[in-house]
C-alpha cells in the first residue's frame, strides 16, 4: 500500500537543488533544480542512466557532498551550509550507507564490522541482532575474505542498519552481484524497511528493481523526469532481471 504522504512525516525536504562540478575547464551540471520530499518508512528507488545525477543526489542527501544551490532539510536540520563536523555527526547518527562494493573492513570479522559502527552510535542494536536480521546469525566471526559477495553485502546492510538510522542509502547494492544473490540482498533491504520502518533510498539503473518500491523517481539530465507511485509493492523474491 502506498503511504499517505499527508500523514507520514517528511524525513528529507529538498528545494531547488542544483549541483555544478568544475572538471578543469568544463562545468558539469549534475543537478538542475530538484524539488523532492522523502517520507519516513518509504522505500524509494532512484532510477536513471549514468550521468543522470542520481548518485549526486544521494551523496547530497547523505551529507557527503554539498549542493551548489538550493536547500536540503533533514527533519528540522538544514544540511546545506552545515560544517564538516556536523555532517560527520549527521552520517554517524542518522544515515546508514550500503555501497556497491560492500566496503567492509577486511581486518574485522562480520560482527566487528558491525560493532565498528555501533561502538560510535548513540542507540544502536546489538551487532549480533543486526546480523541475525540479515540472516547471518551463524557467521558472526568470519572475516570478509571468508564470505561470499552476497554475504559480504548482507554484512554491509547489517552494518548500515545496526545504528538504527533514520535513512538507509544504497548505491547500486546489487551492482556487483549475480541476480540470484542480488534478490537475496534486496529481500534483506525489504525486510529492514518493513520491520524497522527505515526510509530506504535505493539507486539502480536496473528498471526491474523499481517494482519493489513505494515510489520510483526517474532522473534524467539532472532533473526529475518522473515520480511514479507503485500501486502495490512487488516482493523482492518475485523480481528478476
Amino acid at each position: 500500500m502506498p503511504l499517505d504522504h499527508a500523514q507520514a512525516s517528511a524525513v528529507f525536504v529538498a528545494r531547488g537543488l542544483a549541483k555544478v562540478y568544475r572538471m578543469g575547464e568544463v562545468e558539469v551540471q549534475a543537478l538542475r533544480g530538484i524539488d523532492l520530499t522523502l517520507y519516513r518508512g518509504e522505500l524509494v528507488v532512484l532510477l536513471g542512466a549514468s550521468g543522470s545525477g542520481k548518485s549526486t543526489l544521494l551523496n547530497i542527501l547523505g551529507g557527503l557532498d554539498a549542493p551548489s544551490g538550493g536547500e536540503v532539510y533533514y527533519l528540522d536540520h538544514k544540511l546545506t551550509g552545515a560544517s564538516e563536523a556536523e555532517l560527520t555527526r549527521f552520517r554517524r547518527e542518522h544515515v546508514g550507507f550500503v555501497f556497491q562494493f560492500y566496503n567492509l573492513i577486511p581486518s574485522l570479522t562480520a560482527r566487528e564490522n558491525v560493532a565498528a559502527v555501533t561502538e560510535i552510535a548513540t542507540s544502536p542494536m546489538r551487532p549480533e541482532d543486526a546480523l541475525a536480521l540479515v540472516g547471518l546469525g551463524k557467521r558472526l566471526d568470519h572475516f570478509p575474505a571468508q564470505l561470499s559477495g552476497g554475504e559480504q553485502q548482507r554484512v554491509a546492510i547489517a552494518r548500515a542498519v545496526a545504528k538504527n538510522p533514520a535513512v538507509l542509502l544504497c548505491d547500486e547494492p546489487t551492482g556487483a552481484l549475480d541476480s540470484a544473490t542480488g534478490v537475496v540482498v534486496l529481500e534483506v533491504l525489504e525486510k529492514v524497511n518493513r520491520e524497522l520502518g527505515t526510509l530506504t533510498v535505493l539507486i539502480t539503473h536496473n528498471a526491474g528493481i523499481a517494482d519493489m518500491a513505494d515510489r520510483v523517481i526517474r532522473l534524467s539530465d539532472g532533473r526529475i523526469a518522473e515520480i511514479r507511485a507503485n500501486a502495490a509493492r512487488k516482493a523482492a523474491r518475485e523480481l528478476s532481471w
Partner: protein
Amino acid sequence: MKALDRKLFRDLWHLRGQVLAIAAVIMGGVATMAMSLSTYDSLVATRDRFYAEYRFADVFESLKRAPEPVAERIAAIPGVERMETRVKAGVKLEVAGFSDPITGQLLSLPDVGAAQLNRLHLKRGRSVQPWSADEAVLSDTFADAHGLQPGDTLAAIINGKRKRLTVVGVAVSPEYVYQIAPGAMFPDFKRYGVLWMGRSALAAAYDMEGAFNQVSLTLARDAREQDVIDRVDAILADYGGTGAYGRKDQFSNRFLREELKQLRTMAVVFPAIFLGVAAFLLNVVLSRLIALQRDQIAILKAFGYGYAAIGGHFVKLVLMMAVLGVAAGVALGAWFGQGLSHVYTETTFRFPYLDYRLDAGVILIALGISCLAAVSGTLLSVVRAVRLPPAEGMRPEMPVAYRTSLVERIGLARWLAAPTRMVLRHIGRYPLKSLLTVLGIACACGLMMVGNYQRGAIDFMVDVQFRQASREDLGLTFIEPTSGRALHELAALPGVDFVEGFRDVPAILRFGQYRHRGAVFGIQPEGQLHRSLDRSLQPVAVPPGGVVLTDHLANAILHVKPGDLLTVEILEGSRPVRQVPVLGITKQYLGVSAYMQQDSLNALMREGGTVSGAYLAVRPGSEAELYAKLHERPRVLGMVANRAAIQSFYATIGEFILFYNLVATLLAGAIGFGVVYNSARIGLSERGRELASLRVLGFTRGEIAYILLGELALLTLAAIPAGFVVGIGLVGILVVAFQSELYRLPLILTPENYAMGASVVVVSALLSGLLLWHRLGRLDLVAVLKTRE
C-alpha cells in the same frame, strides 16, 4: 615523447611526496660518501702537493751537537739527494698580556738564501733578513692564536737567556702541518709555537756556533731508506744522535697519517652504513610502491605492451628517483666536503692552500650503488605484477585474509575497540612489511646515535685521561735529565701542593718484527698524580722490573702479552739496548705509552735517581705566581697546564663536533623522515578506501587517523628500542674501525645519545603524521562509493 614516457613524468609528479622522500634517503647516503671521500682525497692531494712543493725531507735526526764538517760525511752517503743541517732549540716564550706558560720550538733558517729542505710558505710578511740578529718567523697557528702580526715583538728564553724577537713573517711548514707540543695530548695553539730565526743568531744564543744539532735529508729516487738511516745513525752516534727516522716517524707526518687513515676509515664505514641503510629502505619502499601499481600494469598488458616495455617503464621510474637522490647527494656532499675540509685545515692541519677535489669515480660509485639498490627493489615487484594475467590484475584483489592478533588471542580482546583491533591485525597480517618498517626507522635512530656519539665519547676520554690517569695540574720538563733533588726545590715553590717526579726516555720498542718509536715513562709506583689504569679504569701500581704497556700498544702495535720479553732501544746517552719483561697492560684512550717504575727505569739507564720532569698539584689561585717563578728557572723547559690544554682542546674540536652533529642530524633526519613518511604514505594508499568508507559511515577524521597513525605510532615506538640496538651496533663498528695510535674511542653512549636517536624518530613520525592528517582531510569520500579499488 612516447605515451609511456609521458605517463612516467606524470607518475613522478603524482608521487612527488614519496619521490622526494625516497630521494632524500638516497641523498643522505650519497652525501656522506661524497663528503668523506672528497675530504680524504682533497687532504691527501693537498698534503702531497705541499710536501713536494716545499721539499719536505725524507729522513730526520736530532743529536746533541756535531761540528759542521760532519755534515759533509752525511751528504756523501750514497742515496742522499739533498741534506741540510739546522740548529733546533726548545724555548720558553713570553707574549705580552698572556701569563700562562708557553713552550716553543725554535729552528734555524740559513743566514743567506732559502732553505734547501722543509721550506716555509709565508702567509704574511717576509722571511728573516740575512744575518739578522733578532728577527723571527712564527707558525701561523701561534701567531693567529695570539693575534701577532709582522712588526710585533715577543721574548724567547733560549738556554736560560732572554732574547727579544721581532716578528717579520707568519708561515706554514710541511714539518708542522700538525702542531702539538712534545708530551701534550692535544694541539694547543696558544701555549705551543714554532718559530724560525737566522742560523747565526740562534747558534750564538744556543752555543751552537760552527755546529748543528738537527739534520734533514731527502733520498735519491732509487735509495733504500733504511740503508741511509743506518749510515746516518752510524755517523751521528758519536755526537749524541737520538736515532735517524723516516717520514713515518716524523711527528707531524705521523699524526697526519693517522688522522688521514681515520678519515679514510670514516669515508668507508659511514657511507657504507648510510648507503646500506638507504639501499635497504629504497628496496622496501619501492617494492611496496610498485605493488600498488598492479592494476596499471595489468592495463598496460591488456593494451599489448610486452614485459620488457612494462619492466623498463618502472625501472625508469625508480631510476629517475635514484638519479634525483644521487644528484642532490653529490651536491650536498660536495658542499659538506668543502666545509669539512676547511674545518680540518682551520683546526687540525695547517696547509697553505686546499686542493678541494671531488672525484668522478666517487660520483659513479654512488650512482651505481643507488641505482642497483633501486632497481633490485623494483624488479621483484614488477616481475610479480607482470606475471599476472591482465584480467586478474584488473580485478580487485580478493579481500585480504586477516586473523585475530596475538594480543587478542591471549585474551585482551574485550578491552580493544574495533579501530585498535584493525591496527593490530594489520600489523600481524603483514609481519615482514611491519618488521622492515621498524628496521628502517631503527636505522635512522641508530644513525642519529652514531652522529652524536662523539661528544659523549670525547667527554669520557677526557675524564678518564685527566681525572683518573693524568691528574696533575701542571707537567713540566727539565732542559735535561736532572737529579731528583730538583723535586725538593719545586715542592718548596709557592702554591705547589704536591710534586711527583718522572723520567722519560726516548726509545724504540721492538718485539719480533714489530716496532714502535716512542718513549719509556718512569713513573711513581704508587703515584698520586700520574697513574696507570687497569681494564676497569681503576688505578693500579706499576710493578718493579718491567714495563706496563697501553692496551693498544701491546695488542695492535707490538703484539706482545704479559710475560713476553720486549727489546728496548734507548735513544739517549749511550743508547743501551735492553730486554725488559712486559708485566701488564694498562687501559688508555689517548695516545700510547710504555710505563715503568721510575726506579726500574733509572736502574735500566744505570743512573741514580734522575728525573726528566715533574708533575705538580697546584693550589687553585696560585697559578700565575707559580708560572712566573717557574718561568725564571733556567732548567725548567716545557710546561703543560692540563686545564688550559683541555679547554683549548674543546675549543678546537667544538667546531668539528658542531659540524658532525649538523651533518648527522640532517642525514639521519632525512632518512628517518624518508622511511616514516613513505611507510605511512603507502599505508594510506593501501588503506585509503577502507578509511574513506569509515568516514562515510560517520567516523571522524580523528577516528580514522587513529587507525592509520596508530599503526605508525606503534611501529615507531617499537623502532625506538630496536634503534638503540642498531645504534650500539653501529657505534661498536665505529669503535673497532677507528682504533689508532692517537686515540681509541670508548664504547660509551650517554642518555643524550639515546634521546637524540629517539627524537629523530619521533620528530619524523610527528611530521609524517601531520602531513598525513592533512591528506586524510582530503580523502575522496564520493569516489569510495563507486570505485572498487
